[in-house]
């Protein structure tokens, strides 16, 4: 008891006349803050937590060399470099470049920096040989993960030249005819993440094989659609000719195939790309019939919703380029809804503004209006709102929904994956979420290579866009609204994002399943899920309520509930770095509970022993 409680009256909160009622007695008075903390505290970078390196791989072993991964080797080193840290000020030390990362180790006690070269978007020289002022000459590195790094070199003998060239080479290996690090990395894990997703098993889990839906391997060799997976689920009634004809009418052959089916009502979520309507308003009877088949596969409803993710203006504009949207005249019983989600270029610009706001320091006086002006949360809200509408139609109206945008690999993936998370508790587990990413994002051809720009130096490439990051942000928003509905914590989400860029694992490389097969990624690289699944404990949410009552989550898509994910976007700023105190406390309580459980077990064992002894001794 603390010293201030000398009046004997303060304890009334826990003790009450009616001792039989124990409602109020919820705060145990004993201390149990001694429990060891888990590594999820103070998440800065999930990349800095590395296992020891097998000695056989190590090439050089100087004491100040950084830890190396299996397959990692030192490429270059610069021993007299100043890291211009925006928070702790300049620090002198050694800059090491490996084929995987950049490591800065300061000679004093300042924190070190460890950045996988995969996150580097652009490298620039700052100042010239004649620049004046301290630390005016050096290298600036712009990263994909919301930070920039500046290093100052000595202004003599072209001291930065070697490091600059090595950085260019290994940060952008594809532009220099080199391989990505994932192909050199060869660490062994107890789990094989490449086996996490098995398309047919997943379709069976959903209960696809029934009277209405079948599995087809028509795209086994990726002939019908080169950006789609090999295995599809389509209505039983649909013939191969139907599928082929429809493919001709859909942008890049991305015809409607099944994403998810409701276990009871059989209402489905299907996905595709825009129809090739064009200015002339072309029609395709087979495509119309095919969509009718999707509708008919759900006996509960005589209607189908077509959710076009785009703003209507964009959809109309696409007609000029040969695309467009389904007219309700041509598609009987279909209702078309535009979800007003903007394109990849708008999102990229929004993230750029967000980075300006969050890095390196935030201007407190402009924080709220700054968030407003980035539009980032508005885009997040829009995507969530769209997914909620899809989930609502499927769950409450028992009506099937067909989702598309232009090509059906960006906004469509966001919408189907999010609505599946809302509808199906399986995708809220660690394993299920991995399956979801493998299925809706990877197998359906979200172009990770293009959107992230792995290993190439075209930093201003118009194909780059934070589409997947937005999806993860939306997932985080849902976890905030439903704190006990997810098996994973935000450390898991941050880990995924870190390795989205790192190029250490093969998971997010290439643009499609076809390319991944061609490049033998499963044999040549390690899956991110191997790494994650061998240490699942640290990614678990202590509040996860396994026997969850709630099958369907309907988040509130109002900006009043949507927050900026500071633990991700502002994590480089040490003053913004906080661990969630609630989760921390819950973990303490749980570990205390575990201690007590062990105590009780020992106590019971003792008792049993005593009983045994007592029964034995008389004889």
């Amino acid at each position, binding site marked *: 008891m603390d010293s201030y409680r000398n009046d004997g009256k303060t304890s009334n909160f826990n003790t009450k006349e009616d001792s039989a009622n124990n409602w109020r007695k*919820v*705060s145990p008075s004993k201390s149990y803050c001694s429990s060891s903390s888990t590594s999820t505290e103070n998440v800065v970078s999930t990349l800095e937590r590395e296992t020891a390196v097998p000695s056989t791989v190590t090439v050089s072993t100087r004491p100040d060399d950084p830890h190396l991964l299996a397959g990692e080797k030192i490429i270059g080193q610069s021993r007299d470099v100043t890291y211009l840290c925006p928070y702790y000020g300049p620090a002198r030390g050694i800059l090491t470049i490996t084929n995987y990362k950049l490591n800065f180790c300061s000679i004093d006690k300042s924190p070190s920096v460890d950045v996988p070269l995969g996150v580097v978007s652009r490298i620039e020289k700052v100042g010239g040989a004649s620049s004046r002022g301290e630390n005016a000459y050096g290298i600036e590195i712009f990263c994909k993960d919301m930070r920039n790094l500046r290093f100052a070199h000595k202004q003599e003998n072209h001291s930065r030249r070697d490091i600059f060239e090595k950085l260019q080479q290994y940060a952008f290996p594809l532009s220099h005819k080199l391989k990505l690090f994932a192909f050199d990395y060869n660490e062994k894990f107890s789990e094989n993440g490449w086996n996490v997703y098995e398309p047919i098993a997943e379709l069976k889990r959903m209960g696809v094989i029934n009277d209405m839906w079948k599995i087809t391997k028509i795209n086994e060799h990726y002939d019908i659609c080169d950006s789609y997976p090999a295995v599809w689920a389509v209505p039983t009634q649909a013939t191969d000719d139907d599928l082929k004809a429809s493919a001709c009418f859909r942008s890049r052959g991305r015809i409607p195939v099944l994403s998810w089916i409701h276990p009871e009502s059989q209402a489905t979520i299907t996905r595709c790309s825009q129809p090739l309507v064009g200015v002339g308003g072309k029609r395709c009877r087979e495509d119309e019939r095919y969509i009718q088949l999707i509708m008919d596969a759900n006996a509960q409803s005589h209607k189908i919703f077509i959710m076009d993710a785009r703003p209507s203006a964009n959809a109309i504009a696409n007609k000029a380029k040969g695309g467009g949207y389904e007219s309700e005249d041509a598609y009987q019983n279909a209702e078309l809804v535009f979800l007003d989600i903007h394109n990849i270029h708008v999102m990229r610009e929004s993230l750029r503004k967000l980075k300006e706001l969050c890095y390196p320091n935030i201007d407190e006086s402009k924080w*709220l209006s700054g968030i407003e002006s980035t539009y980032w949360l508005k885009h997040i809200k829009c995507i969530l709102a769209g997914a909620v509408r899809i989930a609502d139609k499927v769950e409450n109206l028992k009506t099937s929904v067909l989702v598309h945008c232009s090509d059906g690999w960006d906004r469509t993936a966001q919408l189907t994956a999010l609505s599946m998370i809302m509808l199906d508790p399986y995708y809220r587990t660690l394993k299920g979420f991995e399956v979801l990413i493998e299925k809706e994002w990877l197998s359906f051809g979200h172009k990770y290579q293009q959107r992230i720009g792995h290993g190439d130096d075209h930093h201003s490439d118009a194909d780059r866009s934070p589409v997947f990051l937005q999806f993860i942000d939306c997932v985080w928003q849902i976890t905030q609204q439903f704190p006990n509905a997810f098996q994973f914590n935000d450390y898991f989400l941050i880990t995924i994002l870190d390795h989205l860029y790192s190029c250490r694992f093969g998971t997010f490389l290439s643009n499609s399943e076809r390319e991944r097969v061609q490049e033998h990624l499963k044999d040549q690289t390690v899956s991110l899920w191997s790494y994650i699944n061998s240490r699942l404990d640290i990614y678990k949410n202590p509040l996860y309520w396994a026997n969850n*009552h709630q099958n369907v989550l309907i988040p509130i898509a109002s900006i009043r*509930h949507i927050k900026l994910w500071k633990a991700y976007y502002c994590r480089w700023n040490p003053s913004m770095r906080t661990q969630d105190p609630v989760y921390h406390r*819950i973990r303490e309580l749980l570990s205390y509970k575990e201690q007590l459980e062990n105590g009780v077990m020992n106590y019971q064992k003792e008792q049993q022993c005593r009983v045994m002894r007592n029964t034995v001794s008389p004889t």
Partner: protein
Amino acid sequence: MRSFTDIVFHCSLKHKTMIMGEAKDSGFKSYIDESMLENIVLNDEQRTKFLRGETIVCEVENVRMYRPLSDKKKFTTGVLTITTFKLSFACAEEETDWKGLIQHNNLLGVNDICLSSIDTIYQIGEKTRKKLVPGQNVSGKVKELLIICKNMRSFEFCFKFSTKDSGKSVANVLLHHCYPKRHSLLFAYEYSEPPSGKSISREARLFRTKEDWRLEYNRTKCKNWRISDVNQNFRTSHMLVESLIIPQSLTDSALTQAVEHFRNRCGPVWVWGTPLGAALVRMADLLPTITDRIQENTVLEHIRRSHPDKKPPYLFDLSRECPSPKDVYNSYLKLRDLCVPESTRQFKQQDFKFYGLLDNSKWLTFVSICLSKSLEAAELLSTHNSTIVLQEGNGTDMNCVISSLVQIILDPHFRTKYGFQSLIQKDWVAMGHQFAYRLSHILDKEVEFCPLFLLFLDCVWQLLQQFPMAFNFSETYLTTLWDSVGISIFDTFLFNCEHDRVLAETGQDKLVLRSVWDWSRQFNERDIAFFCNPLFQDTFTEKLKPKTETSALGIWNQCYFRWIPDLEIRCGGRPQIDLCARLIVSEVWELREKLEGKENCKHVQNREEYVKLLNTVSSFYPFSHNAKEVTINNTLLTSSDALDTQSILNMNND
């Protein structure tokens, strides 16, 4: 079962009501044949209940109450009653539907609000919204009234189907009774329920007596100060209590002389200190007519001498460094706009630029200023062992906010429910925060309404978010406390100062004092149980180091948004964390008792209850007033662009 010991049933009136309805058309048609609507009689449970001493002023049948944010399309029909205590809307909804989902108040029904909680009344026309001014009468026809309460709740009533002129009379009755000009017109003076006789000393220290101050002074182990009777019979200052703690070296006569120079005659008063000798002192500004600062310097010198190391105190000029009550009031109005949107259209417009509007309200900026000033003072007190003198205008507004926050930051005692309640008694009630004016219990032209107390509660809520293990009360407790400030039965927040309270208690009115801290008066044990925080760790006695920047602050959803049904997350939100924590703690208790060789089945029962709640409660629990109506409201889900581009959204089809 509900216990209604203090309720007299009113049975002479025949209550008729119509069941809940939904207008099919967006346009509102008055030709609805009344015979088509089912008339049903309210049962005893549903009827408005009355307290002893409460009298009916006005009663209107066939009143429609619109569901918030339904654009007048969803409503309930019932009986609107206005009494000397409350506004009450009785309808045929099954009370049982609410059980377990919302806090049950013994004094007020689900759709009741105390007249003292009413903030603004608007007359609603076809396209107009006119604020009704207290003291003036409404003469024209009143079809609809919108009533906005201090706790951000709003009621919208339609009188189209009631008897002629009933809208007008309701408006006039409200204007007359909601804004009394004299204190003795408040319901507390009419309430004739005999006092419970229960001692409040277990709930809070009231700081009305010398003994309370002595105990507090001893508890802090602060030295070199003395308890003076200089304000006996409020000779020195009307605003303060009779016992004051002042520097040991300051004589009563010197103090009497000095206070002449201070506004409100509020000289320096000790409120808290540390064993090392640093003290927290508050006082008012010098009178504007005083040009020399001799008297101020004299008292400051005495304060310096009271420090064991004779360290000069730090002076915090809060009038300059903190927002003025006027600023806080304007900020509150803007915040309230965000919490009480008029229509779905306005809701969406606000959503469209929410963070900008929130920024513009400055509410979080003010929270941030209060927290950072308090943290600064707390650091000086603890780390530098310096005495802090808080100085401000009359010494009764921002002084209360900062002074109490400093103590919460430093002293774990004030983070318990008992300590927190005592702190409010000490730094708000005893120190003369003008609750009667600031909460506008009575209308006064000079001192305006200003929810400084809400600003303080918001600051405490922010601390609770950052240090959930440090407090033994919950956010539900804080929200309930804000609801309770507008209930004119309790004397705690009714008076401007102790002097007024004493006059009312001993004068001809013989007011019976009822403390708000007697929570059992309002709530049953189950609801009170949710006031405590399952994450509390009573060994946590450290000083708090909160982040005070706006970026580290959040919006108090439960308090501000709970009346907007569309914002309630079904089976989600904080209550889920709270209940999970209760489950774990209950298991911990059981295990500990097992280790001690005790077996107890109550834990299992509690857990069953928690699990049941986990499966049903939504994010505003226990304030889920519209939980059962929550359906997916598509109007909220249209994208922001729908406002500037005309997209083809067909909202009415489902």
